[in-house]
């Protein structure tokens, strides 16, 4: 099996230099959106941001879920979880229903609201580069090693080692190990994750299991409903017929008496 690629972001190492932000813009040919990258936010033209929380910095981008909600909800399969890990998007298939945006637990996908032929936009973990064995643009330029690119299981090991070797520095949790079924972007931090604007109330189960529970009832409804309705039709029809016949017999017997 192909090993899934992932990104490990270590908040304690991030210097807030913005190299990842610039590299992302360049790699994806995105126009400038802000004079101060620390004040920018995710948008149709910005796939990753660096946010300032007191004296620490946190990156935000698509988390590339292991079982992505966006992939499961898209009616036409425009979102795809690749074998390598990145979640990619095909704008040619897309209808523009924006269910992926509504459903994403991490509030990531953005929309080209001002366009007449709009696309959903988000980080695709530099899929073209990753496919060719390269690392993502953001990981490549990171001067402090805060953003690491590699195999998911190896990055998990690195994260666990860091947490264990320096328990005073790190808040003892790897964000993305289990959140909504896990993600291919892992984050470790000195403070709890809700303080850095990460969705903290996520269940451990992947969210698509919630709708799967409803969808798996469909065959039963179709089969059961079909049998039930056909039976009811036949029974009630028969009942009406018998009632009509009885009525006629009564009329006959009455008119027979008259004769």
């Amino acid at each position, binding site marked *: 099996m192909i090993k899934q690629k992932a990104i490990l972001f270590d908040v304690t190492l991030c210097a807030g230099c913005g190299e990842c932000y610039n590299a992302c813009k360049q790699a994806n040919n995105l126009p400038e959106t802000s004079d101060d990258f620390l004040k920018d936010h*995710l*948008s149709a033209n910005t796939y990753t941001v660096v946010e300032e929380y007191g004296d620490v910095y946190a990156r935000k981008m698509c988390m590339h879920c292991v079982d992505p*909600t966006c992939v*499961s*909800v*898209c*009616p*036409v*399969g*425009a979102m795809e979880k690749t074998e390598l890990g990145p979640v990619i998007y095909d704008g040619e*298939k*897309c*209808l*523009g*229903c*924006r*269910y992926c*945006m*509504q*459903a994403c*637990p991490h*509030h990531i*996908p*953005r*929309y*080209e*609201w*001002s*366009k*007449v*032929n*709009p696309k959903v936009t988000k980080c695709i973990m530099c899929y073209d580069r990753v496919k060719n064995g390269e690392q993502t643009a953001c990981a490549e330029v990171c001067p402090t090693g805060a953003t690491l690119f590699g195999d998911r299981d190896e990055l998990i090991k690195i994260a666990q080692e860091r947490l264990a070797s320096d328990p005073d520095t790190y808040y003892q949790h790897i964000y993305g190990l289990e959140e909504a079924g896990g993600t291919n972007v892992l984050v470790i931090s000195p403070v709890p994750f809700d303080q850095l*604007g990460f*969705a903290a*109330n*996520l*269940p451990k189960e992947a*969210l*698509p299991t*919630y*709708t*799967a*529970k*409803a*969808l798996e009832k*469909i065959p039963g*409804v*179709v089969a059961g*409903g*079909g049998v039930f*309705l*056909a039976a*009811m*039709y036949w029974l*009630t*029809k028969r*009942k*009406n017929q018998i009632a009509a016949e009885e009525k006629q017999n009564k009329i006959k017997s009455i008119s027979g008496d008259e004769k």
Partner: protein
Amino acid sequence: MKQIIPKITFWRVVAVIIIVAGLYSTYLRFTGGLGASTHLSDEFPWGLWIGFDILVGVGLAAGGFTICAITHIFNIEKYKPLARPAILTAFLGYLLVIFGLMYDLGKPYNIWHAIIYWNPRSVMFEVAWCVMLYTTVLFLEFLPIALEKFKMKKLLAFMKKVGIPIMITGVILSTLHQSSLGSLFLIVPQKMYPLWYSSLLPVYFFISAVGAGLTMVIFEAYLSARAFNKGIEADLLSRIGLYSVIVLMLGLVIKLIDFAFTDKFHLLFTINNYTLLFYLEILVGTLVPFGLLIQKRIRENRRWLYASAIMVISGFLLNRLNVSITSITTEAGLTYFPSIYEISVTLMLVTVGMWAFKIIAKNFPVFSTETHFENHNYELEEKVSESKA
């Protein structure tokens, strides 16, 4: 002399204003995109056009399958006079839902992709297919009315033969997608205010659609009676009103039991805007109409029945908007209120729907006393008249 220029009346003026405003919004939507015409944003990607045009539109069209099931599958024949108008309401309702979807979809010209690119894990995919198939079913259910008008007896006889399987298919498809519209929200447990989130959302959506769909039949019958100066089936309608509020009450009871099991009762005593809107929804949509229509004297009074129907429909509308808009919380605590362009498109759709109903009802045997999917049994009638003679 035939009158060519229609008389200017208050409602006609209102309708013209709404249509003109709607057309202007249409222009904005398709030249400037969703950004220019709506208050939607990355934080609030779904708004009025999903909440009203789709969720309310489909829900209120549920009268079509409910009445069909009562009259043609459960063979409770006395309700047959209600079947045709209900089918027409549903058919127009679904056409408008699809029409409305063209505004909301970012790439409406790709709508047919749902036919070729499949994703069976998606609730939206299932809804798309059910709506496509059920609209076809509604067309077939409406077809006999058109065939009668054009006196195409052979086709009519054929339609009569396939009528029951078509209607059974229609009821199953409706059950599936009415509930699935609720399932759409199952996947956002952490984004919805818990008063509205429940794993039973599909059940609530189905039950409330059946209840509100039935009152829609009452509403539509009263409007028709006014527009066409015709009588109404007062006895049938008051019974439909009673069944409707019983169904809705059942839905509320299930909801309260669910609250007990999921420990949500304390939310009812937390006073905030959510709670107030929730109370408004169940009071207007269920409790007050139930209290009224459960009394025979009141439900047999036309005005009260009509008023109750309007209450149920308003409560239903509020419920769908609450689920799809009010309950959605965003990180930044942003709120959404539709733009005047969104509102005007929605109003235009409603106006077009009512106008189309009127035109079709005027020109096709929609209120015919002949029962749907059944030809006159000429043989029997002859026999009856012979025996009388």
